[in-house]
């Protein structure tokens, strides 16, 4: 297993380098540079040129790339002209918000998906299964942003059960109990909306997996030995069908990243996705590139995680 993990991590290194090159090229393609926001237009061109020289903006691209990578690794992602502060600081605040939202979404996803998948697979072709299949059918065709809007409309505005935006009620003392409760309340509706769509794939997969395994010979054997129905399901079927679900965990993270842009936008939740959209609209490109880099690395780590879990639960992968 260690051999596989180490080899898999080595595969990741060129991926990260390529990602950073692409982002660097994108950054160079963006109109303006780090200076356009820093200085006011009254300064004469010679001074700007001197500053460009001092900042290394006239260096060949590989030198610039190296400088950028060196600083990024040390946590210096540049200066945001919108907020007039280091990008790493802005991202730090937003990242905690996105992290908690993503964590809650994941928890809710599995809390819903696993019981539904098990019910649907175990009692297939009953009315309960039809109900669940109906839900996954609609959920599969439902774009996340429309569903989130409808949730916001019903639960945020019509019923007023949840706050309709932000990440915390203003004026609360950070760290106090009320602060945490308020944070949770603000996260619940966005997380629930994202989770209800994210469950669909897992439920469908778990259902077909259980139905598949139910007909295998070793289940017949277990029954023939006189194992109780609950033992057959909990020990024999579930164990086998939950393994692939565990392995998809990392890919869920990749899915959450795309989803968070929509969710944060609709619920005005101040996370990385919202920061990204806001910065691109006002062309604060240092922030934009940092967000893409961050989410790109998160996606690479997600697929790494999935592959490692998969190699633990499925020994056949390791041989390859």
């Amino acid at each position, binding site marked *: 297993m260690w051999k596989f993990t180490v080899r898999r991590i080595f595969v990741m290194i060129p*991926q990260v380098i390529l990602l950073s090159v*692409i982002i660097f090229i994108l950054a160079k393609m963006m109109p303006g540079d780090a200076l356009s926001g820093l200085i006011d237009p009254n300064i004469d061109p010679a001074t700007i040129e001197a500053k460009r020289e001092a900042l290394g903006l006239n260096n060949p691209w590989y030198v610039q790339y190296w400088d950028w990578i060196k600083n990024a690794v040390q946590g210096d992602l540049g200066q945001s002209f919108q907020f007039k502060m280091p990008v790493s600081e802005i991202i730090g605040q937003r990242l905690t918000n996105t992290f908690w939202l993503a964590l809650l979404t994941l928890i809710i996803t599995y809390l819903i998906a696993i019981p539904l998948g098990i019910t649907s697979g175990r009692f297939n072709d009953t009315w309960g299964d039809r109900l669940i299949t109906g839900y996954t059918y609609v959920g599969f065709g439902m774009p996340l942003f429309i569903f989130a809007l409808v949730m916001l409309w019903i639960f945020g505005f019509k019923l007023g059960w949840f706050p309709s935006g932000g990440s915390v009620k203003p004026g609360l003392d950070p760290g106090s109990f009320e602060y945490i409760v308020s944070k949770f309340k603000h996260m619940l509706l966005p997380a629930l909306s994202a989770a209800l769509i994210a469950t669909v794939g897992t439920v469908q997969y778990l259902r077909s997996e259980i139905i598949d395994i139910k007909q295998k010979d070793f289940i017949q054997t277990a029954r023939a030995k006189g194992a109780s129905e609950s033992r057959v399901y909990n020990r024999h079927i579930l164990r086998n069908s939950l393994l692939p679900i565990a392995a998809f965990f990392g890919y869920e993270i990749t899915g959450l990243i795309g989803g968070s842009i929509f969710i944060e936008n609709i619920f005005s939740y101040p996370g990385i996705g919202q920061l990204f959209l806001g910065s691109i609209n006002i062309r604060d490109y240092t922030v934009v590139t940092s967000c893409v880099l961050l989410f790109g690395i998160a996606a690479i780590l997600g697929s790494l995680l999935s592959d490692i879990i998969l190699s633990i639960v499925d020994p056949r992968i390791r041989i390859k």
Partner: protein
Amino acid sequence: MEIETSKNPLLLSKVEEPAKTPSGWRIIWRELVRDKVALLSLIFLVLITAFVYGISLFLDQEEIVTVDLFAIHQPPSADFWLGTDYGGRDIFGQLIIGTRNSLSIGILVTVMTGLIGIIFGMVSGYFGGAVDNIMMRIVDFFMILPFLMIVIVFVAIVPKYSILSFSLIMTAFLWMGKARLIRSKTLQERELDYVQASKTLGSSNFRILFTQVLPNLSSIIIVAMTLNLAANIGLESGLSFLGFGFPESTPSLGTLVSYARNPQTLQDRWWIWVPASLLILVLMLSINNVGQALKRATDARQRRG
């Protein structure tokens, strides 16, 4: 009527057909007839496509997107069947043109990603070895990019942004799935006897790939492209919703939904965003229904008909 048709020599051959293996189209047709939901979906799709493309011939896009300050946010009436938006523009007209635009771009992107995927996947799978290795690493690399963010960045920085550049950007980051699928099918296909036989007879690789392997992959390609069409329409409307799809002067279903980001519109002016949302949902579900029926038709074990 019955007697007359059976006398027709042209139709006589059809009666004898069950002795032969049914053709691909026949299987697909039987599957669709057996699955009523899929059939209804197909009829709905054909009707709505004909309707939006037909009606939009008589609608003037310029006129519909012209701001009319005297008609802002009007509820549905005889003049404006679905009311107006914040610029006094007719929602019904925007809905028709928006559906047409969303469908067009969905189809365009699906066809373009399909073409790239087919060529890339077939070459990679057929030649194998080092070629395959390099090509699949390229696919891997595109797969790890955070799709939504990269597309948004490109949309924001491309100069002279247009519908064509939008669909090219989407295509550039969406072809990998199909390339992978077609590669794996080509890998299976090239081991089959007919490919070896054709090689022995001296056919060129090009000829084998495009006149012999390709027809055998056609059913899989059609299924994948149908299901992709639904996904692409969803992606396009999602990007337009965020403001990084069509420019606002070109209505899309996603643009109409995006007006609901204004809480006032979301709560009190349902006519602006609910019809477009429903239409996106119904379109995607219908395309998926047809796609699932096609998928069953290509897999003999799952067929109902």
